[in-house]
């Protein structure tokens, strides 16, 4: 009687030990499995695919937690800037008609070098480096 009870206890102990070990192993095994997603980074980011922009157009992209703007100049060259207006932080947009970057909040204008042309912005837009790798247009921030 006593012996069988003890056996039952040992059996239960073994069972729960296995459960406990499984609960430990599961997160570890899941952790070890490599992630498929592209690593996210705040230093460089894929802003767009090639062939998305046509000359004299622009588009916004996500750069870490801030928006950026990628522009194809009328000559077909890529340029990228921070899309956060230096005045009050609105998001700027590309104006194809004027070939300039425009902030709608207080009518601030920037040229294709990010320099202030007119309006209230106190500073130029931060410029990023752009290069093309395969099908991707990669935007890179100079060392933080």
């Amino acid at each position: 009687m006593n012996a069988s009870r003890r056996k039952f206890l040992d059996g239960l102990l073994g069972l729960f030990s296995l459960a406990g070990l499984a609960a430990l192993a599961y997160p570890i095994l899941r952790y070890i499995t490599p992630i498929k997603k592209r690593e996210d980074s705040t230093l460089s980011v894929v802003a767009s695919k090639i062939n998305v922009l046509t000359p004299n157009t622009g588009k916004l992209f996500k750069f870490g937690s801030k928006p950026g703007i990628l522009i194809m100049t009328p000559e077909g060259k890529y340029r990228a800037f921070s899309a956060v207006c230096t005045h009050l932080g609105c998001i700027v947009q590309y104006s194809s008609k004027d070939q300039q970057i425009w902030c709608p909040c207080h009518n601030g204008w920037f040229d294709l070098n990010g320099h202030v042309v007119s309006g209230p912005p106190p500073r130029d837009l931060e410029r990023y480096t752009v290069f093309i790798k395969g099908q991707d247009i990669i935007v890179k921030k100079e060392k933080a």
Partner: protein
Amino acid sequence: MMKEKMLNWVEERFDLSAIRHLTREKTVPVHRYTPFYYFGGLALFFFVVQIVTGILLMLYYKPTGENAYESIRTIMTQVRFGWLIRSIHVWGTNLMMLAVLLHTFAKYFLKAYRKPRELTWISGFFLLVLALGFSFTGHPLPWNEFAYFAAKIGTASIGSVPLVGPWLLEAIRGGQGVTGNTISRLFALHVVVLPLVTIGLVILHLLFVQIQGSSVPIKVKPVGEIPFFPNFFLRDLRVWMGALIVLVGLATFIPAELGKKAAQFASAPAGLKPDWYFLPMYQILKWIPSTILGISGELIGIGLISTGALLILVVPFLDVKASREEESTWFTVIGVFVLFVFMLAITIYAKLY
């Protein structure tokens, strides 16, 4: 009977008497202070947790100025259970320090350092220093704002060590300032040098305990003894499982923060303080004026702290009474007031103000 055969096969080639001794003959004395024996095992458990989670973190962590923060970010946001592994590693540091300190206090008050266990105490002292070293070298690795200033301020005090200070400072930082080079160096220390030394010293420490058995406090008569294996070991196991629940619970409910990426020229965030186990040192350095009689205050502070540490190191040789198995009340009183009350008070003070 398969088991016996296999054991015999091994026995013919290697002498297993040491292991047999551990499993069959090692006992643990039973008296009212027996629970104090758990702290050492607890510290060991947390150390193993740190090794396991540390190895896992290395799978994704990249020790460079450009990538360190981003890789931790990836671990926290994209790797499955990455948040758990990192949070356990962060909380594990705190709990391990707590266990190590409790173990130290317990052994001090039980006078476990007395003859013939002086070497066990000394090896334990260095393990405590190594534990602090782990925290010191590991904290800056995520390269967030807080980590950056921890590295900057932490290493700065090394520079005031006489003669070799400036050289040592540059050697640790990998240059004049705290940069990406610093990460590489701290990383090498954190994951290779310190673990090698610590594991070696832990083995030595356990070997001492194994050879000499557990110390019984002065004038305490054990009511009996229980076999270490499996009786005491199962009790240890129970404590470890409890510790695991606490650890995983803390990691789940208060996950480690990521913070902002370090920026070299940003100003230090307000209210920056070191981890709680560094607070006594931090507060002492803060209290000492910048110069006393023409000597730099930092140097005096470091001198004071080193002297204190040295005194703790040589306690087995100072406490002559205890080594004669006589009660050394003075050491208990000093221990209560200086080691415990003072340290606790200064920690709380530093935390609040």
